C-alpha cells in the first residue's frame, strides 16, 4: 500500500493584518471613503482580511502622487538607475518567494505547487527581464531615446494576481512610467505585499501606487483625466467598456481579454505528452487562464485513443487543499465564478454534449468544481464558443489539417492555440494559418518574459512581454 499523506505547506510564513489601507505615495493611507471589502480564502471561505474600497477621491490622490513622482523623480532618472530598483525588487521577490506563494494560494485558491513552481519564478523573471531593458531602450527599435508615456493606470485580474502585476508594472517602470494599479476585488493581498516590497526596495514614493476596490474603483482609475495610459487584463465585456471610455481621450490602451483556445492534436502526435499538454492546457490553475486550451480539437482517427488516455489521466488528478504540496486542482476563486462555470456546464448538457468527470470528492466548504470534459461538442454549442474560465474542456474532432485550422479560427477570440504533431513541417503550416497571438507547438501554457503575449480579435490588442511589450509603455 502506498497512499500520499497530507503534505501541507506551512501558513506560518505569512502574516496577514486584519485590515489594509491604500498604498499611495509610498505610504499606507486610509481611504477617504468608509466602505471596505472582505477577501476570503476560496478553499475554506475563511475571511483573510479587509481592504479599502477606494473611492474616486482616493484614485485621484493616487494619480496625483504618480504624476508628481513621474515629473519630479522617475522621468529624470537615467535608465541604469531605474534598472537598479527593478533588479532590487526582483531579488526581494525571490527572497520572499515562499511567503508570496503561500499568500497567493491562500487568497486565490490555486495549488501551492503552481504558485511556488510557476507564478513566483515567472514574477521574479519578469522583473529581472525588464530591469535589463531599462538602460537599453535605444536598442529596442523605437528610436534613439524613446520617451515614457507618463502615468499608467493598470487594472489586473484575479487568476494570476502577482504575475499579472509583474507583467504590468515591470515594463511600465523600466520604460520610465509611474503606476497606479488596481488588483482584483477577490485577490488584493499579494499586490499589497508587493507594496511593502516597493518600500523595502526604497523605490521613490509615488512611482508605484496600489488602490484596492471593485469595478467602480477601476472605472474611476481608467477615466481619470491625468492618466496617459490604460492597461487592462480581464473579461472582454469590461474590456469593451474601457475601450469605449478611453476612445477619443488620447490615452494609450492595451487590452488582454478572453480566449477560447484550440488545442489541436494530430494523429501523429506524441500521445502521452499530448495528453499531459491537454491537462496542463485546461486544468492548470483550475482553468482560470485566459489562454487556456479549452477546446480540444482531436483528429478523428485517434480520438478514442486520446480520450481513453485523457480520462485515465484525469483520474489521477488530486483535488483538494491548495496548500497541500501534492494538490493538482485547487479551489475556484469565487462563488460568482463557480456559479458561472456551473451555468455554462449545465447549458452544455442541455445542448446535448456528454459530460464526464473522474470520481472525485469535493470538500464541504469553499468553492469547488471537478475537472470536467464534454464530448460530442459541435462548433454551434455555447460551450465551444463562450469562455467558461473553469476546469471544463470541450472536445471536438476534425479530419484534415485544413478543417482543424478552420475550426480553430472560427471563434470571436484569438489569444492562443496549441499544435501537437511529430511532423515539423505541419507545425509551421499550422502556425502560419492560426489566427492566435501565441501558438504553442508540442507544449501549452508556457510563458517566458522574453516572449510577447497578446490577442487577435476579441482577445484584445497590444502585446505584453518581450521587446514588443516595451511599445505599450513608450511614446512611439
Amino acid at each position, binding site marked *: *500500500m*502506498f*497512499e*500520499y*499523506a497530507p*503534505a501541507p505547506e506551512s501558513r506560518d510564513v505569512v502574516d496577514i493584518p486584519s485590515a489594509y489601507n491604500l498604498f499611495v505615495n509610498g505610504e499606507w493611507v486610509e481611504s477617504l471613503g468608509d466602505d471596505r471589502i472582505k477577501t476570503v480564502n476560496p478553499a475554506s471561505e475563511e475571511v483573510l482580511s479587509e481592504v479599502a474600497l477606494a473611492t474616486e477621491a482616493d484614485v485621484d490622490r493616487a494619480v496625483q502622487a504618480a504624476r508628481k513622482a513621474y515629473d519630479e523623480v522617475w522621468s529624470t532618472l537615467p535608465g541604469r538607475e531605474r534598472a537598479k530598483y527593478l533588479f532590487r525588487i526582483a531579488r526581494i521577490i525571490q527572497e520572499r518567494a515562499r511567503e508570496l506563494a503561500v499568500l497567493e494560494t491562500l487568497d486565490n485558491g490555486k495549488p501551492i*505547487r503552481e504558485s511556488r*513552481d510557476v507564478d513566483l519564478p515567472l514574477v521574479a523573471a519578469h522583473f529581472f527581464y525588464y530591469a535589463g531593458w531599462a538602460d537599453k531602450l535605444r536598442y529596442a527599435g523605437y528610436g534613439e531615446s524613446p520617451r515614457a508615456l507618463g502615468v499608467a493606470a493598470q487594472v489586473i485580474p484575479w487568476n494570476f494576481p502577482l504575475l499579472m502585476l509583474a507583467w504590468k508594472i515591470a515594463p511600465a517602470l523600466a520604460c520610465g512610467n509611474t503606476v497606479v494599479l488596481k488588483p482584483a476585488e477577490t485577490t488584493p493581498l499579494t499586490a499589497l505585499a508587493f507594496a511593502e516590497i516597493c518600500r523595502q526596495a526604497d523605490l521613490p514614493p509615488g512611482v508605484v501606487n496600489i488602490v484596492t476596490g471593485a469595478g467602480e474603483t477601476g472605472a474611476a482609475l481608467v477615466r481619470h483625466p491625468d492618466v496617459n495610459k490604460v492597461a487592462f487584463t480581464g473579461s472582454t465585456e469590461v474590456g469593451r467598456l474601457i475601450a469605449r471610455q478611453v476612445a477619443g481621450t488620447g490615452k494609450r490602451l492595451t487590452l488582454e481579454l478572453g480566449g477560447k483556445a484550440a488545442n489541436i492534436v494530430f494523429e*501523429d*502526435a*506524441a*500521445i*502521452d*505528452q499530448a495528453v*499531459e*499538454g491537454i491537462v496542463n492546457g485546461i486544468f492548470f490553475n483550475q482553468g482560470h487562464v485566459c489562454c487556456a486550451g479549452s477546446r480540444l480539437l482531436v483528429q478523428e482517427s485517434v480520438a478514442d485513443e486520446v480520450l481513453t488516455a485523457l480520462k485515465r489521466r484525469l483520474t*489521477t488528478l488530486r483535488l483538494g487543499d491548495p496548500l497541500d*504540496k*501534492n494538490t493538482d486542482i485547487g479551489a475556484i476563486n469565487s462563488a460568482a465564478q463557480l456559479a458561472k462555470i456551473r451555468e455554462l456546464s449545465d447549458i452544455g448538457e442541455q445542448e446535448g454534449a456528454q459530460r464526464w468527470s473522474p470520481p472525485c470528492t469535493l470538500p464541504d466548504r469553499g468553492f469547488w468544481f471537478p475537472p470536467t470534459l464534454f464530448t460530442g461538442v459541435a462548433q454551434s454549442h455555447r460551450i465551444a464558443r463562450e469562455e467558461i474560465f473553469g476546469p471544463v474542456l470541450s472536445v471536438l474532432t476534425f479530419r484534415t489539417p485544413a478543417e482543424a485550422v478552420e475550426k480553430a479560427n472560427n471563434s470571436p477570440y484569438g489569444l492562443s492555440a496549441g499544435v501537437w504533431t*511529430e511532423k515539423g513541417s505541419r507545425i509551421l503550416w499550422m502556425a502560419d494559418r492560426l489566427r492566435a497571438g501565441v501558438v504553442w507547438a*508540442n*507544449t501549452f501554457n508556457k510563458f517566458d518574459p522574453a516572449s510577447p503575449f497578446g490577442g487577435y480579435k476579441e482577445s484584445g490588442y497590444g502585446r505584453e512581454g518581450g521587446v514588443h511589450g516595451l511599445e505599450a509603455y513608450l511614446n512611439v
Partner: protein
Amino acid sequence: MTTSLVDVASSDVTLRGFLHGLPGVDRVGADQRAAALATRSIKTTAKAQAIDLAISMVDLTTLEGSDTVGKVRAMCAKAIHPDPTDTSVPRVAAVCVYPDMVAHAVRALAGTGVKVASVATAFPSGRSSLAVKVADTTMAVEAGADEIDMVIDRGAFLSGDYTKVYDEIVAIKAACATAHLKVILETGELATYDNVRRASWLAMIAGADFIKTSTGKVAPAATLPVTLIMLEAVRDFRLRTGRMVGVKPAGGIRTTKDAVKNLVLVKETAGDDWLSPEWFRLGASSLLNDLLMQRQKLTTGRYAGPDYFTLD
C-alpha cells in the same frame, strides 16, 4: 497474447512497421512530466509505506569481476535480514548475481522466499553468439536461478535488425523454462526515448516477463524519464493484450528519495497494480542501506551513523 501481436513478428517488415507505428515520445514533454512527478511530497505515513515497499522490491546486486562465494553468501545474509536489529524490516525481493554464483546463492537462500536472479547472455555487452547466450542462460537456470536478466543485442537494435533481437529474446525465453525473464534494454545505449519505447514493446511481444532499464555498467542508467516511458509501455501493453509485464529500473538509484520518486512514477503512470515486488523491482546495491537509515530515522526520530548498518 492476442493474435495480432503474434503476427507482428512474422516478418521484418511487419515488425518494423509495428514498432515505428507506435506513437512518438516528445523528449521535452517526457522530461517535464518526470520532473513534475518528482516534486510529489512524500512524508510521514506515506514515506514509511514507500520505504518498506521499496525494500521489498530491491534486487540486491553484485556483478563484479571480483565476486567470490564469500561475498555472495554475505550478500544473501543481508537480503534475508536487511537490518539484524529490527525484524520488522521486510526482506528484499531477490539477489542478482553472475551465473557461476547462482548455485551458492540458491544454497544460501533456500526456504527464505528471497529469489535468485542471474544475469546471462554475455552480460553486459551481449556480444556473443546465440549459442553461447543460450548456454549461459541454461547454466544459470540449471543451477537454480528463479529469474534471468538477459541483455538485448543493442547493435542489432540500432542497425534496425529488430528480428534478430526478437529471435534472441524468444530463444532465451525458451531456455528459461519456468524461470522469469527480465529483458535489459540498456537504455543508455539506445539513446532516444523513441528507441526506449520501441525496445520495450519488442521485448514484451517476444515474451519478456519484466523489462529492465540497464546493466548498471553504462551511464546514464535508470533515469526517471526512461522509467516513465517503460511504465507507459507496460500499461499500454496490458490494455492491448491483457498481460502484465513488470518493470525494473537498475543502476544509479542510490537514495531513498530516488526510490520514492520511482514509486510515485509507478503509482501515477502504470497504477497501483504494479506496486508490488511481483511487478516492480529496483536493481541496486547501496540503496538498501539508505532505505534502512531513513526507516530508522522515521521510527526513532534519530539518524544512526553508517557503522550501524551492515556493509555486506
